[in-house]
């Protein structure tokens, strides 16, 4: 099964994989070979894929995943692997977002800040788990 992860800036990932778990808007979505054609929205979070029995993960932002013809295409605005995540910068961004959460009131702003918090958390999650291993 082919997995492609594309952002507007680059093709972040493109390889044959065994299976993938994406953070769908309605919860995690596991995709195996010969999955039915599907399009769904993504929530910022962690994408995990299995290749040659090894699990790898990437932090991804909002976007869409499209599955057809044994091909999974992830369309997102952010895709970072372990080495690209700068932990201290992310922590600062998270703190900033959480601070601004106290000041704002309209639901749209809250939603926007929540998205950025989710993105930061996803990045931290991957970074920290990698260290424990």
């Amino acid at each position, binding site marked *: 099964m082919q997995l492609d992860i594309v952002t507007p800036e*680059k*093709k972040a990932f493109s390889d044959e994989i065994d299976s993938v778990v994406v953070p769908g808007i309605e919860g995690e979505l596991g995709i195996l070979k010969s999955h039915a054609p599907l*399009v769904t*929205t993504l929530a910022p979070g962690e994408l995990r894929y299995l290749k040659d029995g090894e699990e790898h993960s990437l932090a991804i932002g909002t976007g869409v995943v499209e599955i057809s013809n044994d091909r999974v295409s992830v369309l997102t605005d952010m895709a970072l692997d372990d080495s690209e995540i700068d932990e201290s910068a992310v922590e600062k961004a998270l703190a900033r977002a959480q601070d601004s959460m106290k000041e704002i009131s309209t639901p749209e702003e809250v939603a926007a800040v929540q998205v950025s918090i989710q993105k930061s958390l996803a990045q931290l999650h991957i970074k920290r788990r990698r260290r424990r291993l």
Partner: protein
Amino acid sequence: MANLRDIRRRIKSVKNTAQITKAMQLVAASKMKKAQDQAMSGRPYADLLNKVLVNLKEQTSEEDHPLLKERDGEKELVIVVTTDKGLCGPLNTNLLRLVSSQENVSTEAVFVTVGRKGSQALSRMKRELLADFAVKDPVAFLETKQISEFAIEKFLSGEYDRVKVAFTNFINTISQEATVETLLPIRPIDLGRDSDFVGVGKDPGPLDVNPGPEYGGYLFEPSAGSVLDSIVPQYVNYQLYQMILESRASEHSARMVAMKAATDNAQQMIKDLTLEYNKQRQAAITAELLEITTAMKALE
């Protein structure tokens, strides 16, 4: 008439200028290449986005989407994409002339600027500025996304009925064209199509819109409508990102051309000055010889 020393000094200073402009030309050339590459590498994203949109269009009534709905109001928000720095020929002047002409932009329009030159010029023209964004080089998608999200928010809240973008379209290295495009509302027919303005990131082949699954349609989760809701803003984000990339590529190529012209002019000037210098040197030697011979003649 300048004396020899003055000419020598001028030659030296022109040489220095030529060196600087030559360096700037080379820097601009490599940056332009980078901007072009960046636009090209966004290609798979565009293809995929268009593919999903084409498939979605069949399953949803896209006229209902607020970002696609034409409104009667006249309030315009104009995003003006200019450069931060000068020395790039008539690029910013052309764009700002287009913006101030009334056929493209209504006189009551409110502006959002990207790039320092635009905000300076527009405040000199006493136009209303709503916000000023800075976009670093190379362009980061997350930065341009803030701008488009700002525009989407203003559009949806009903503050503005149309959002336009004034930017410089990259046609090729020596020609760039100031353009005003409507960003919002999106014309439904444009969804899933290649935009007309794509210059730098143009794919040599036809757009890859394969019909998706071999048999049957897609399943949409949770529903086609909600997928459309989330994908249309992404389409807008990507459009603006592309427009800014076009501007960047234009900026660097305009600067490259301007600096090439400056270097050529400086070389020509060095040539002229050197000729003048040699003429005067020759004249001085002749005069000296003449003096000696007259003196000898007088002694005889």
